[in-house]
């Protein structure tokens, strides 16, 4: 059996561009973090210069600010609003199309997806954990999702261990970070003068072989380990337990649901940024000549009125019931359906909630485990 977990080396900062060109040389389009309009978005990288440099991000409930320090690091921040989700489970996608002939016959067809192989630079541990869950949902399903599966197969993942979590992060409490432990092709520890690069797959190993690596020194190893320990210590938010299913379902009439509902706008921001949320609706779009139609799916949210509409009645007409649905599913139902909680502690729903609702506070009020 090939042992590929051991391939590790130090990649000097000025050689980082070689990583991107090696990936490009293997036919990958490189996607990575870029600063745009005061936020951080994952987009195609022309080169290392497109990566954020000396950027730090300050996040809090309902707030996200890009700040500049004098540093040389590219990944000295935790995460932006997007994770891998929009790359794989795209926000809008055609499922099939239908052509109607003059005598009314219908011909349904599906395009074979041929996605461009894509390498993502700067994947976080929480995103890998979320990816694992989305894979279970869309790929390891009775009816695998064709588009997602095709894109997933052509994905190369370069993870970066977190050294500076956001104020909103709580991956240490869910067991999903801050260091990436599996599910990547390469993982990087960022130091001031370069990266410790380690392979996590055969493809990762092959890529490392193309790079000018130096042996990793004991000090470098020590610095990386300390960065991870520091990243754990910096996190002060947490969920009151890893499996809260029983406490949540035992507290369906807790008054806190009403309290949070008076603040929540039912906007669905939280479900859009959440890397594990998978709800979608299907929409049919006829062409103007009425001879063909395209059938799309697009992201939906359990916070909308239409989500639970059945003729003549809405199962969840108010915000209290919708917030409760979201939380009891994410932290409760997921344990039965996917063998773990649906929260990986990325904190995005806290940052991107316009009124700053904090999932960890709400859960602690509703499902505090008596110790």
């Amino acid at each position: 059996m090939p042992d590929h977990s051991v391939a590790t080396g130090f990649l000097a900062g000025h050689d980082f561009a070689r990583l991107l060109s090696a990936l490009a040389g293997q036919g990958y389009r490189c996607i990575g973090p870029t600063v745009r309009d005061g936020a951080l978005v994952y987009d195609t990288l022309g080169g290392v210069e497109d990566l954020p440099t000396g950027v730090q991000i300050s996040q809090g409930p309902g707030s996200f600010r890009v700040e500049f320090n004098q540093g040389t690091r590219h990944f000295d921040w935790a995460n932006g609003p997007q994770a891998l989700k929009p790359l794989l489970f795209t926000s809008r996608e055609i499922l099939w199309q239908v052509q109607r002939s003059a005598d009314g016959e219908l011909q349904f067809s599906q395009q074979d997806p041929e996605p461009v192989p894509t390498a993502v630079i700067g994947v976080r541990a929480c995103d890998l954990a979320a990816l694992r869950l989305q894979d279970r949902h869309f790929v390891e399903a009775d009816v695998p999702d064709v588009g997602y599966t095709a894109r997933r197969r052509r994905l190369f993942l370069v993870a970066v261990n977190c050294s500076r979590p956001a104020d909103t992060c709580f991956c240490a409490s869910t067991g999903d970070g801050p260091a990436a432990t599996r599910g990547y092709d390469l993982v990087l520890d960022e130091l001031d003068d370069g990266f410790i690069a380690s392979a996590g797959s055969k493809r990762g190993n092959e890529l490392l072989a193309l790079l000018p690596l130096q042996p990793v020194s004991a000090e470098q190893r020590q610095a990386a380990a300390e960065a991870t320990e520091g990243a754990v210590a910096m996190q002060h938010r947490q969920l009151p337990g890893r499996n809260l299913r029983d406490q949540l379902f035992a507290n369906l009439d807790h008054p806190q649901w009403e309290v949070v509902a008076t603040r929540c706008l039912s906007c669905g921001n939280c479900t859009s940024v959440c890397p594990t949320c998978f709800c979608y609706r299907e929409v049919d779009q006829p062409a103007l000549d009425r001879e063909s139609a395209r059938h799309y799916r697009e992201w939906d949210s359990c916070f909308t009125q239409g989500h639970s509409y059945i003729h003549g009645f809405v199962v969840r007409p108010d915000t209290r019931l919708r917030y409760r649905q979201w939380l009891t599913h994410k932290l409760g139902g997921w344990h039965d359906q996917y063998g773990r909680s649906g929260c990986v502690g990325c904190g995005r729903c806290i940052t991107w909630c316009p009124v700053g609702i904090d999932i960890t506070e709400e859960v602690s009020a509703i499902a505090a485990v008596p110790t």
Partner: protein
Amino acid sequence: MTIASHFPYEAEVIERCQESPTIFTLVLRLTDPVIASEYRFTPGQFNMLYLFGVGEIPISIVSDPERPGKLIHTIRDVGRVSHGFSQLGVGDRIGLRGPFGRGWPLVQLEGQDIMIVTGGLGCAPVVSVINYILRRRERYGRLVILQGVKHSSDLIWRERYAEWEKQDNTQVLLAADVGGTPWPGFVGPITVLFEHARFNPQQTVAMMCGPERMIHAAADVLVERGLQAWDIWISMERNMQCAVGQCGHCQFGSSFVCRNGPVYRYPDAGELLAKRGF
């Protein structure tokens, strides 16, 4: 190849019947002979029917599983897609994918007494059961059918009920919240019918569908009368977009109604059924 995926196949309307001012039946045939020959279903399962340029809706299959070449769907005209279907005639084409979900455990229940409870507009999923049992009457014991409707004029297939009632060892009871004339049944909620139903709770299995509050109330009465909650089966309805357990719309507690249901053992759904919002 399975047709129970995201992708629809063409089906042709081969018969159409208006059952009431708002209810109609479409008999469908899959036009691809290979797909048609592979198609199998069990009563209680449903198809996603697609109207060109408008959308897809979940509709129960009420025909007999041993005649999968003719797929019968009885539809109430309530909105966008169902109204469009009501305008179709013989020869028109639609899209069909399915069958989805878990159906009724009819084979497993052979030899038992069967009680069927349906209320409101939720009759389609159990119509398949009644049809199935009546065609194989000797394989089942006593058959009790309790049907509640809002208004006496909502009851379709009056002649069929009269016909069913004449069968051996079969009891049919009707109730309407609002009675009309002539109305052969009782006036009041469906639970009034249980006082008149003759059944042996030791050997009866109940199958129900309809408004969830009714299901809950009826299950309470049955359990009081000595039926095991375990022996009560229900069929549920939720918004459905994908029918393959992926869009999240039919989420019910820890299950997807399209995949784990729509037919459930009552205790598997019971507690959440009583809660608003799931």
